[in-house]
């Protein structure tokens, strides 16, 4: 597919440079907001609903996928008020099993694909991986951009690979990982976000979780602002997913505040906001139990997987 100037034209029309100090300051000031009692319970439950419960380990096995699928559907078996998570995020080879386990549960199957986590495979292999995952029943595909080309200034290459991936994913929801920890500056994060959105990404995502730094509050803010500007210009709503290093309920609530303040209440739903995490879910459950019982809980009371 040939890239035309008009496809990328919207990126240049929105444009914009990022004030790095301002972004850090804004994110830090939003992070100080105090959320208590009923609002906190609602926020914690929303974070559970927006959670992509993730396992992307070399040691993943059918047993682990079964355990996590059960946990995704009923995170807290003793407390029916706790909702199911948004999706189970796994490697492609487990998609068939997971989609069978999660059928009709409301929990989506999300598969990483496209040469995750480096994105350094040839494009045709990446596309075949996406098609395979969708054929096996994945509702959502998390791809990672090839940073090498983008960092070399090849916006059109990035545009082309996201478009091709979107076509390969067909009906599946396409999340595009920018791997912001490797992009080097907020300006590049914003530009990569705009190119990915212009190329058809349904959601843009911060990180693979495989490198550090992963998600940070200022990065999420910069990406949320890019989504807002893209929405203003084109009327298309793109989702945001933060992933990597988010382990505490406090962090999750801070991301929710940033999304609410930047994008508004319409984005406070699993359709448009996700948190990718593995250990976060247990902390959310602990905090929900603390709010319910008044007692500080014990990590040993929650399943590891």
């Amino acid at each position: 597919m040939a890239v035309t100037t008009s496809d990328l034209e919207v990126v240049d029309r929105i444009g914009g440079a990022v004030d790095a100090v301002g972004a850090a300051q804004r994110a830090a000031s939003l992070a100080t907001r105090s959320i208590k009692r009923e609002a906190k319970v609602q926020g914690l439950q929303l974070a559970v609903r927006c959670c992509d419960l993730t396992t992307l380990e070399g040691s993943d096995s059918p047993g682990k996928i079964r355990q996590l699928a059960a946990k995704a559907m009923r995170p807290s078996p003793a407390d029916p008020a706790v909702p199911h998570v948004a999706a189970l995020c796994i490697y492609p080879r487990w998609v068939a099993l997971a989609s069978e386990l999660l059928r009709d549960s409301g929990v989506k199957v999300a598969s990483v694909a496209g040469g995750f986590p480096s994105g350094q495979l040839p494009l045709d292999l990446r596309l075949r991986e996406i098609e395979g995952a969708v054929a096996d029943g994945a509702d959502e595909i998390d791809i990672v951009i090839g940073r090498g080309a983008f960092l070399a200034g090849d916006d059109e290459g990035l545009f082309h690979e996201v478009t091709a991936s979107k076509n390969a994913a067909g009906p599946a929801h396409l999340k595009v990982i920018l791997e912001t920890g490797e992009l080097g500056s907020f300006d590049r994060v914003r530009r990569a976000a705009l190119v990915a959105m212009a190329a058809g990404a349904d959601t843009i995502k911060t990180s693979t979780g495989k490198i550090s730094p992963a998600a940070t509050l200022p990065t999420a803010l910069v990406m949320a602002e890019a989504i807002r500007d893209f929405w203003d210009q084109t009327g298309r709503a793109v989702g945001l997913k933060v992933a990597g290093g988010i382990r505490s309920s406090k962090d999750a609530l801070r991301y929710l505040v940033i999304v609410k303040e930047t994008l508004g209440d319409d984005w406070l739903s699993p359709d448009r906001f996700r948190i990718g995490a593995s250990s976060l879910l247990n902390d959310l459950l602990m905090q929900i139990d603390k709010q319910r019982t008044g007692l500080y809980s014990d990590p040993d009371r929650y399943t590891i997987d």
Partner: protein
Amino acid sequence: MSRIDVRKTYKLFIGGTFPRSESGRTYEVCDVDGHPLANAVRGSRKDVRDAVTAARKASAAWAAVTGYNRGQILYRVAEIMESRRSELIAEVTRADGKKGAEDQVDRAVDTWIWYAGWTDKTAQVMGGINPVAGPYFNITSPEPIGVVGIVAPQAPSLLGLVERLAPALCAGNAVVAIPSEVRPLVAISLAECLATSDVPHGVVNLITGLAGELVPALASHLDVDAIDVAGVAPDALTEVEVAAAENLKRIVRPEPRRSPHGVTAFMEMKTVWHPKGT
């Protein structure tokens, strides 16, 4: 030229650092004659929670330290306290009065040395081989219970805390302690000794403040394995016991005399069967 006073701000001790309370609150502490002495940190329930998190994080590594090494570290606490003896005596004098202050500090130092000697002997003396019917060795050995909450007595300010802290550490536990509410300052100086004694960060955490606020949070915390009620007022004891029952926390009551039983009070007896060969 006269110098401006350099006064010490007494803060909390959590995870090896000296933070103020997350709540930002303080309360006034008076000397033995009722004159204002300093503003101590008035810790909150969240500080207790943070301290328990720090203690839990530190507990496995501390429990894995050999008894021999743990004894050396406790002995070093005594060494550091000895080197700050005059300062500790001055602080105890302000809190508890001149009478007995020197003796109290000396006995606190000696308490560490006494328990330092027990770290690598508790298992032999308090554990054992049990006679069983069958070709097996049946071995019982004490192991640290995990995270211990300590409510120190109101007085004596230093010795009261050390006498409860030392056996819990000797046993290999991580501790969250609530020092004397009315005389908390010397506990923070003790924390400075602990922080420079190779006691790993998080193994001892001290939260000063109002007992009525802190003790219920500690007693009801589900990630605390035992609570020492030495300093719990008799009329508050039932409440603590009820809260502790939620996760079957062990209630530890101080014994009148120092003994290795005071160490195993903070330990769990673990028994294994092992086949005797032929």
